[in-house]
């Protein structure tokens, strides 16, 4: 198809992928706006990686249509390669090459001339704080350093669209914060980003996100939208006998889930209950110290509500 300028970086309709008897991704509709950070939130095995592989042209969809940057996949996958960057879940650069050698290799593969290479690699080493490590073998670096190297390699050719598959899974919290700062910098420069994660705090940083479970999209929208449209209220209860209380409450049909957070119990009550505090009070012991309060929902609450995995959780 001809290359027009679409408003969406990614548009997928009814995207499905089958592996043998199991459906890894089912009828996924997806619209990712340009210049935004879009998140895939879901547990391991929910189809995040499979979806990303289909969107990068590495896997052929069993059914459905995909347009990425206006190219239709999988037919135009080769033309798309120069314009996307992909950071794989597992470190996929060469362990037995140094940082510099890895970057030079990638730069040559993307056709940068010697002069361009030198300039771009110097730039990347400074952005990602790898100058001191440039002569070190990639295999001997820490998780955080390898992740920065991967990001440097994935963005070396200045792609319009960046795919990041669980980029922070092997990284400590300090490095995760920094990493997200770098993603926002890239986003600011106009790069569209699709990132998959199973961390709630990371998902909350995305402009928009989709919640996936068993290959099915359960919800999508901005984090605020998702929290508002959650269809449940959140009540926190302070009590001495939380374990017992949790048992009692989870058995009520109106309660979606109850999870203990230290000395408090976080209870999700369906929207059909107009006065959640009044509804819960009778079940809570009459102890004077016990308190019930309505709190702002978090993304985790959204996740629990729409994946329905709340009840099974301990």
């Amino acid at each position: 198809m001809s290359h027009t300028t679409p408003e969406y970086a990614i548009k997928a309709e009814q995207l499905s992928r089958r592996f043998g008897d199991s459906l890894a991704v089912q009828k996924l509709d997806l619209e990712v706006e340009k210049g935004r950070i879009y998140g895939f939130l879901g547990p391991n095995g929910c189809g995040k990686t499979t979806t990303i592989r289909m969107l990068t042209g590495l896997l052929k969809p069993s059914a459905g249509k995909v347009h990425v940057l206006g190219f239709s996949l999988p037919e135009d996958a080769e033309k798309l390669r120069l314009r996307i960057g992909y950071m794989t879940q597992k470190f996929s650069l060469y362990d037995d090459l140094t940082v510099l050698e890895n970057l030079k290799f990638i730069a040559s593969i993307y056709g940068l001339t010697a002069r361009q290479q030198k300039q771009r690699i110097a730039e990347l080493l400074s952005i990602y704080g790898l100058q001191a490590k440039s002569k070190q073998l990639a295999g001997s670096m820490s998780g955080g350093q390898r992740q920065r190297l991967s990001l440097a390699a994935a963005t070396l050719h200045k792609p319009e669209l960046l795919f990041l598959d669980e980029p922070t899974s092997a990284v400590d919290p300090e490095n995760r914060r920094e990493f997200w700062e770098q993603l926002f910098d890239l986003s600011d420069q106009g790069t569209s980003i699709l990132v998959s994660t199973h961390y709630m705090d990371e998902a909350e940083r995305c402009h928009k996100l989709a919640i996936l479970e068993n290959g099915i999209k359960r919800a999508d929208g901005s984090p605020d939208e998702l929290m508002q449209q959650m269809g449940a209220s959140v009540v926190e209860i302070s009590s001495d006998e939380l374990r017992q209380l949790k048992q009692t409450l989870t058995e009520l049909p109106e309660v979606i889930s109850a999870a203990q957070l230290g000395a408090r119990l976080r209870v999700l009550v369906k929207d059909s209950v107009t006065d959640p505090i009044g509804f819960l009070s009778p079940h809570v012991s009459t102890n004077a110290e016990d308190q019930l309060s309505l709190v702002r929902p978090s993304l985790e609450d959204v996740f629990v509500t729409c994946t329905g995995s709340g009840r099974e959780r301990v």
Partner: protein
Amino acid sequence: MNPFIRIRAIAAKELLQLKRDKMTFGMIVMIPLIQLLLFGYAINTNVRHLPVGVVDYSQSALSRVLVQTIGATQVVRFTQQYSNLPEAEAAIASAEVRAVLIIPSDVSQRLVRNPSVGMGSPSATDAETSRPVAQWLVDGSDTIVAGAIKGLRGMPLVELLDKPSNRKTPTFEVTLLYNPEQRTVVNIVPGLAAVILTMTMIMFTSAAIVRERERGNMEMLITTPVRPIELMIGKIVPYVFIGAIQVAIILGLGKLLFNVPINGNLMQLALATLLFITASLTLGLIISTIAKNQLQSMQMTIFVLLPSILLSGFMFPYEGMPQAAQYIAETLPATHFMRLIRGVVLKDVEVINMAGDMYWLALFTLGGLAIASIRFKKRLD
């Protein structure tokens, strides 16, 4: 975009990885070096000093002189004496000796009447006079050993009787070209170059694609704009040089240590070698696109390597094989290179005169590259 930049990038990357893999890097030099030394000294089809026994029913001075005369040929070495036939047969079966000489009690009568001694002039067709002097019992399961003993059949015996021999006129005059001294090593060394190249070249590249997959680099590599053919060429280029180094080691040491002549033109040799190296490398690449892991690629390498050693003419003459086996041998690059390298090195042939072999190697390389590139999919499914 320039495909040469990408090919160079892949080739440079392969060389760097090879350099860091000390064991493999060492093998490049050690394999040809050690195997040449080992086989150059070890393999010899001129059998000498075979351990044999004797059963002497005559117990005469003549029989003892006969044994000494045979021993003087150095083909055999008498190590055992047996008193009877069953004992001798048991010794052959248990591999104590390879053959036993049975000297009959009437050995002296047999000898004087033997036509080769020429005492009288009875007709050689006479059953009485054409009786052999003695008998060899040979472990015939090894044809080379049997052949060596058979060679003793026409051994002159006149020295025993101190008389001039009946001159025999050979039916044919035989002139041995290229290896007049009949040294096995002259044939072995160029052949060894072909075998070692087959082994190392196929082995290096058969792991090439599989390794990227096993180490998890494949997902990154196929997301880049690199084309399969560029990847394939980039993967084989470094090994062309390595192959050239190995041939130089083998032929150079062959000349230095075993005095194997290099009669041919070096450019001709380089041309034939280059074609063979690329053919072997592409064969390895095809294996690499089929194998799922490095163990499988190793198994397939050996599957190709054995016929390359046994059918290519390295160990046994090509012409001795049945037609069907010859067809199989013809598909193997090693068979063609075996002819080419022996031709150029020993006989100073110009490769243009062996164009058929050259064409096959070239065709094999191009076809192999095409197959490997087509088989390599830039997808994970």
